[in-house]
């Protein structure tokens, strides 16, 4: 079947591997392509590869869930942002608006399936593990994800785990995704891991868009004797599509993939996406996009900005009970070593390269371990300035009724706190309050998300994880300069996203959930007079005494005045410094 949407058309196929045929395993791959209509038509394509080990007794089901959820989320993203041409802005939204919802909804599908179909005795036997499958059901459904959201003038690429994305222009082929050098020896990251959102690699492609995009499970690449398989494919496939069209590929794709599945033994899947207007002249916006991305990913201050745009590879200290990587030899190798087969002139793309790091960011420890082996703890690398409190200085957070985050753009303050009406020992409802800018009446918008603390991280079901010592919250207004805010609940700091300069700071004083007065909300922190950064200028007003208990107990919060919606309290230190 050929799917058409806007400038794109695609076909797909999936074939069970010969090794799986011999040992009676199902095809653990899944592939799906959907079209998106509306004002910004396009396509969404996804390939998922279920892990092949004994433990992953339902990975074929998991991979099907993966492609269904990914296409659904991708379709919504394209419908919402297809008209945008700001690659940088779009790229900054992908992890929050695409990856996190996919991971969350995939998890929900898994849990629903387990509820409806509890693990059977034969599955428990096949799993060959002493662990109870019910303790971590998602692992049994584990799979990788390769996703493309193809819009009118951009393509968003997302990848969790092994598999490949190949971009073809003429006779040239390239691998646009950043390399994840952890993916060797059959080990892969996965949708089933708690680090899935942070593990995702993201790449935005702008004009000129590739003529052909191939999304493949790793069984395809592993079937070729030559490491230069991409360039070989580019030459042959491009010619066939030019001469015979996509219908020809649709007809013969199953047979082509069957050869690979027979030779290499693994399941093989491909989504073949072709740009219908391959002869059209592209818009030349690449250079500007690239320079902006370089600024954004290499701030002088380090992780506070780039941390939003790179996999949270360092934030794995809380995985003591789970493997950071899964051996998923339903695929096997990725091209971590061979990298890009053909060097192309750089196209307009926003490189969100997890392997690059700003100079000031500590290099996270690579964690790669087989199942049932605890990975080594890695340090959090989220301290935005060298003088900021470190993770060891951060106060213990009380999840029962404690503000945990402040943020916003210039003129908009966001406060995030827990809803004590849903107290749970390890999870609960997180209430977000989004204060609209001061020129409008305050319209607190309460959103909820399941949360949990894991060591030094605050994790949400539908958002990226945040280190508990700091919250990164870029503004959402593309029309004005965004500020980046970070807090450890004692000091709130703001940064210039372009330069990484510290713009201002203020002491945060809060209270516990014991009410301080009927008219006041005890959960909203108060931002008061600015504090003095070590080495900085002394403000005119003396900083209030920090109410953090000496023993490192919960930060107390006092009621906040309603004029927190005005920028004055938060931005006053900015004006002094600005």
């Amino acid at each position, binding site marked *: 079947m050929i799917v058409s949407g806007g400038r794109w058309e695609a076909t797909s196929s999936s074939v069970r591997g010969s090794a799986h045929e011999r040992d009676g395993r199902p095809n653990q791959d899944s592939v799906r392509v959907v079209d998106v209509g509306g004002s910004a038509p396009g396509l969404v394509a996804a390939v998922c590869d279920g892990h092949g080990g004994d433990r992953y007794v339902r990975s074929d089901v998991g991979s099907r869930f993966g492609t269904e959820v990914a296409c659904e989320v991708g379709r919504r993203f394209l419908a919402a942002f297809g008209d945008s041409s700001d690659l940088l802005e779009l790229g900054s939204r992908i992890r929050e608006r695409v990856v996190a919802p996919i991971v969350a909804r995939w998890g929900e599908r898994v849990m629903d399936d387990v509820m409806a179909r509890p693990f059977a005795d034969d599955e428990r036997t096949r799993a060959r593990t002493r662990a109870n499958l019910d303790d971590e059901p998602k692992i049994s459904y584990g799979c990788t994800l390769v996703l493309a959201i193809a819009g009118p003038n951009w393509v968003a690429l997302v990848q969790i785990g092994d598999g490949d994305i190949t971009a073809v222009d003429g006779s040239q082929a390239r691998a646009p995704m950043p390399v994840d050098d952890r993916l060797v*020896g059959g080990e892969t990251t996965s949708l089933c891991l708690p680090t899935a959102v942070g593990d995702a690699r993201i790449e935005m492609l702008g004009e000129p868009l590739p003529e052909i995009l191939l999304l493949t499970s790793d069984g395809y690449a592993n*079937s*070729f004797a030559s490491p230069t398989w991409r360039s070989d494919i580019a030459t042959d496939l491009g010619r*066939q599509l030019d001469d015979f069209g996509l219908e020809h590929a649709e007809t013969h794709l199953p047979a082509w993939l069957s050869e690979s599945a*027979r*030779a290499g033994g693994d399941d093989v899947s491909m989504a073949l996406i072709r740009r219908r207007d391959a002869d059209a002249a592209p818009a030349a916006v690449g250079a500007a996009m690239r320079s902006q991305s370089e600024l954004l990913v290499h701030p002088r201050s380090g992780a506070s900005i780039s941390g939003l745009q790179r996999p949270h590879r360092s934030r794995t200290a809380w995985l003591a009970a789970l493997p950071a990587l899964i051996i998923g030899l339903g695929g*096997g*190798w990725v091209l971590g070593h061979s990298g890009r087969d053909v060097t192309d002139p750089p196209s307009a793309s926003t490189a969100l390269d997890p392997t690059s790091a700003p100079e000031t960011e500590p290099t996270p420890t690579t964690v790669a371990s*087989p199942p049932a082996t605890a990975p080594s703890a890695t340090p959090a690398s989220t301290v935005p300035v060298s003088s900021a409190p470190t993770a060891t200085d951060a106060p213990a957070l009380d999840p029962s009724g404690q503000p945990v985050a402040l943020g916003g753009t210039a003129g908009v303050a966001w406060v995030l706190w827990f809803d004590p009406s849903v107290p749970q020992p390890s999870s609960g409802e997180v209430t977000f309050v989004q204060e609209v800018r001061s020129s409008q009446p305050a319209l607190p918008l309460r959103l909820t998300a399941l949360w949990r603390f894991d060591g030094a991280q605050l994790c949400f079901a539908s958002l990226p994880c945040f280190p508990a010592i700091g919250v990164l919250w870029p503004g959402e207004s593309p029309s004005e300069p965004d500020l980046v805010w970070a807090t450890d609940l004692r000091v709130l700091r703001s940064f210039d996203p372009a330069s990484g300069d510290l713009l201002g700071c203020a002491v945060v004083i809060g209270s516990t959930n014991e009410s301080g007065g009927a008219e006041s909300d005890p959960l909203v922190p108060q931002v008061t007079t600015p504090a003095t950064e070590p080495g900085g200028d002394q403000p005119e007003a003396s900083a209030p005494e920090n109410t953090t208990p000496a023993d490192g107990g919960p930060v107390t919060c006092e009621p906040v005045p309603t004029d927190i919606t005005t920028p004055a309290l938060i931005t006053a230190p900015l004006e002094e410094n600005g």
Partner: protein
Amino acid sequence: MTERPGSTVAARPLHFFIVADCSGSMASDGKMQALNNAMRETIPHLVEIASLNPHAAVMVRAIAFSTGARWHIEQATPVERLVWRDLAPEGYTDLGAALDLLAPQLGPPHMEARALPPAILLVSDGMPTDDYRPALARFLDEPMGRAAARMAVGIGRDADLEVLERFVSSPDQGVFNANNPEQLVRMIRWASSHASRVASTLAPPSRAVAALSADDVSSPSELIW
């Protein structure tokens, strides 16, 4: 034109490494000859396994360790073309040297990116005479070292089974102790076959290794090591 785009497709390489103790103690009681005989008898079984898993191209390499370590079969040899050349005993038991010779072979350029995790069989009759632990750590630091299907056979009562357990993939089921030549033949054959079979299944080594049969273990023999 229906020709498949792209270049040649082929079975994935599966490197099978034999790491054999050739120390002086292997000369006593015919242990070295028994090991050589066992390898010759194992090759047809490896060929059979390869034929049952056509997606895996089994390639054999061998390291001999005594005083230091050296290649016995350096070039990866298709199992169908393998002719076993006898190992000869002399010297100490430098297991660390063997692991340091092996570890670099588990990554590029020696091991293809598309290769299946290797199968490795370690055979020894005694305690290592060098400081093998750092070398073992380096070996297990290699992703393909960790992913490999690792089995071990200890020969005789002086074999250090604890050391072998540190090497194998599944400590409670991956170490065998052969006490006579007949047992050695069966165990080498079984361990080699199993390691190759597991490595070729596109799945990580199972923690629950199927046990040897009673016949494989209790082989009557006049010679006891």
